[in-house]
């Protein structure tokens, strides 16, 4: 008994420590259902709500949410089959009359220009549907602005161009030269990026003379051509790549001697300049349809009457807004765009503040469809989580104001074709025991 007692006393701390070290919680096990699983289970209901949309309207014509002068892309389109023609136009900022001519702060009067380099970025190039993409550069009057129309510039665009470039030829050569090409004949440079092209056109003083009366301001128009049709976008000031930039290689007077000051001056289309595009045909009015996108860009507001069984008790798994188009979106494959659904913080109609963190995005392809399906799952979930949010959303295009195709669909007034909400949800999980 004595030995046993001593052994037990020695063992006791070990058992105590062991009991503490095993003090963990892990009850996770595969469910052996239905015998050893909870009685209730998550169920899924799939329903199409036909009369749920009300108070739907479109806003944005004639003044769009984004007009051509605010668009992130300047559309250069030549699509005869669609009678669509669009030409980017821009005006650069003025140059100073004096520039630094030495390493100190000494300045000299600008007396002329050796050459300049016009840099533009191109994206949304449809490589699959056209060949011989060419860009033609025209001088335009400095009076261009957001009110300038296609017809206003018809004379300038039918005049002699400043330069013409065959981009496809340059691209083919650049492919053999590690994505950066300098054309030895013209001095043009092409940089091929993953999703964009940057073209740096070299222009001499004969092509673009420095006019002191204009303070060095330049206005250009760009026309795209291709076989059979052209569709490309030129980067605007509002785009990530930036808008057109002119780099000046100037001549200046330094104590009676002509010098070539460094660094070169840059002038852009903003903030005091201008960039935009003029196009045909003119935008069609909204009419009785609902519209998303186009130029100028249109947004559509939709209000929903969500059944309480879904909004308050259901857990939304997938919600799809089904729209019946009146006419399909028209364009080339490169015109595919995104439609973004955004919920509103408060419903004030066309000027409702948008909730930027609650969005759903759907990519729209330029193909004929009988029903357009937009994902609105995140927004539906947020409406369920917060009973205070208005059940109103806006549909808008991305990029906004820089894509000609638009969604045009029936409103809730067209009973057979009104917007529908297809909701897949799980009702409240039933807590029950046998």
């Amino acid at each position: 008994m004595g030995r046993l007692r001593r052994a037990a006393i020695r063992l006791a701390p070990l058992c105590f420590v062991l009991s503490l070290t095993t003090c963990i919680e892990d009850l996770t096990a595969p469910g052996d259902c239905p015998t050893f699983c909870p009685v209730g289970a998550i169920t899924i209901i799939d329903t199409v709500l036909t009369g749920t949309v009300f108070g739907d309207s479109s806003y944005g014509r004639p003044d769009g949410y984004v007009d051509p002068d605010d668009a992130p892309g300047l559309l250069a389109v030549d699509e005869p089959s669609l009678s669509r023609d669009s030409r980017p136009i821009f005006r650069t900022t003025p140059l100073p009359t004096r520039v630094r001519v030495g390493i100190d702060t000494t300045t000299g009067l600008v007396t002329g220009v050796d050459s300049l380099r016009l840099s533009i970025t191109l994206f949304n190039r449809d490589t699959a549907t056209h060949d011989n993409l060419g860009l033609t550069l025209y001088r335009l009057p400095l009076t261009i602005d957001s009110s300038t129309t296609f017809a206003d510039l018809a004379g300038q665009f039918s005049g002699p161009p400043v330069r013409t470039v065959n981009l496809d030829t340059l691209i083919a050569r650049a492919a053999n030269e590690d994505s950066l090409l300098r054309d030895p004949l013209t001095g043009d440079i092409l940089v091929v990026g993953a999703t964009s092209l940057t073209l740096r056109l070299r222009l001499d003083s004969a092509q673009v003379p420095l006019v002191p009366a204009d303070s060095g301001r330049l206005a250009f128009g760009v026309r795209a051509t291709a076989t059979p049709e052209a569709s490309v976008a030129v980067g605007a000031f509002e785009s990530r790549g930036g808008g057109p930039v002119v780099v000046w290689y100037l001549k200046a007077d330094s104590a009676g001697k002509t010098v070539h000051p460094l660094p070169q001056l840059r002038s852009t289309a903003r903030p005091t300049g201008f960039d935009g595009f003029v196009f045909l045909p003119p935008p069609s009015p909204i009419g009785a349809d609902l519209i998303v996108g186009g130029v100028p860009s249109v947004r559509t507001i939709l209000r929903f009457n969500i059944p309480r069984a879904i909004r308050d008790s259901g857990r939304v798994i997938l919600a799809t807004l089904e729209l019946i188009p009146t006419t399909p979106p028209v364009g080339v494959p490169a015109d595919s765009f995104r439609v973004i659904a955004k919920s509103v913080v408060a419903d004030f109609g066309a000027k409702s503040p948008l909730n930027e963190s609650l969005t759903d995005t759907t990519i729209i392809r330029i193909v004929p469809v009988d029903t357009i399906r937009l994902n609105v799952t995140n927004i539906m979930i947020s409406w369920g989580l917060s009973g205070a949010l208005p059940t109103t959303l806006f549909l808008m295009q991305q990029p906004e104001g820089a894509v000609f195709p638009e969604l045009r669909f029936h409103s809730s007034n067209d009973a057979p074709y009104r917007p529908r909400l297809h909701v897949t949800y799980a009702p409240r999980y039933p807590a029950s025991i046998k």
Partner: protein
Amino acid sequence: MTRRIVFFVVALLAGAFPLAAQNSQFGIQTVGTPGRPESVRSRSLGGAFAAFDAASAIADVALTDVKRLTATAAGWSAIRSVNPVSGKEETLHESRFPLFTLAGPVGPFMVIGGGFSSYLDHSYDLLTHDSTLIRGAMVPYLDENISDGGVTDVRMSLAFKIGPRLAIGAGFHALTGSDRLKAIRIFDSLSVYAPVRDTNVVKHNGFGISASVRLDPFYGVSLVGFVRSDDKLNIKVNEAPRGATDLPLTVGAAVRLILKPGMRVAASVTRSNWSVVGTDSYDTMNWAVGTEFGGSGFALRLGVRGGQFPFGPGGSAPSELAASAGLGRTFAQGHGVLDIGVERLQRSGNGLDEGVWTLMTAFTVRQ
């Protein structure tokens, strides 16, 4: 006075711990797994001594052995292997603080006591892979069903010594607790289908009463009879009443023999009509035998118990058989007691076997 403050602090701390019984997969579809309101000492003895143990909440009359203000808190950690017939074995871990008792004499013949113990535990975490049809496509998903909670028995008891050989006890039991039930479904195509997360809070309340009598006909022989009747367990789901579940009547008897100084033997038998709970519930008969060696400073304990578990599929109650052992050590001139124990339980039912290793620890502090 200082010691009384310490007692109350210990009581509050113990009340803050999660109280729960040892879980079983057999209890998932029902109200839960019934708790064992036994002290580590009693459980190390198979439960046979529980009716004579003031730190256990089996028989109120056991409080008559309390001579000083005494508080006991118990905890255990369990490693449970679940072996379903149609699946592979899984090992689960859990830790609980299932028991706290506080008792002290009020006059020469009366003892008042109370405390907390686990009445039902309903904790599990189940993962299920399956697929479902959504808009014409089969979509795989993972379901996770989590329950965390149970029902606690809050006890107030009185025990009287009517004479040198007879004592009686009675108690009132308030049953209270809640389960947090979470259901989560995560689809494999997470970019398309939003996950489902739902939580229900199930609240329980009810009450019960207990009574017991102890007879010491001869020196070294003690007999206890006890009965406990629990009413209904009222259920609210997210604060909305959702009916009630009947709770069982439990009757039992125990005998203890002091064979010689330093050697005690006890046996008990208990019957509960758990079948009143509902479908796949059964009446149970449980028995226990245990022996304790040692005196006031040190004790060695051995026990074995068997019987039925009240819930399970297939029309028959799962069976249980357990063996246990433990040590008790008194410190500080009898003011402190450390009890440790280990139990091996084998539970077998239709479709499932469970094996549980349980390591138990308890502290007792006496005035």
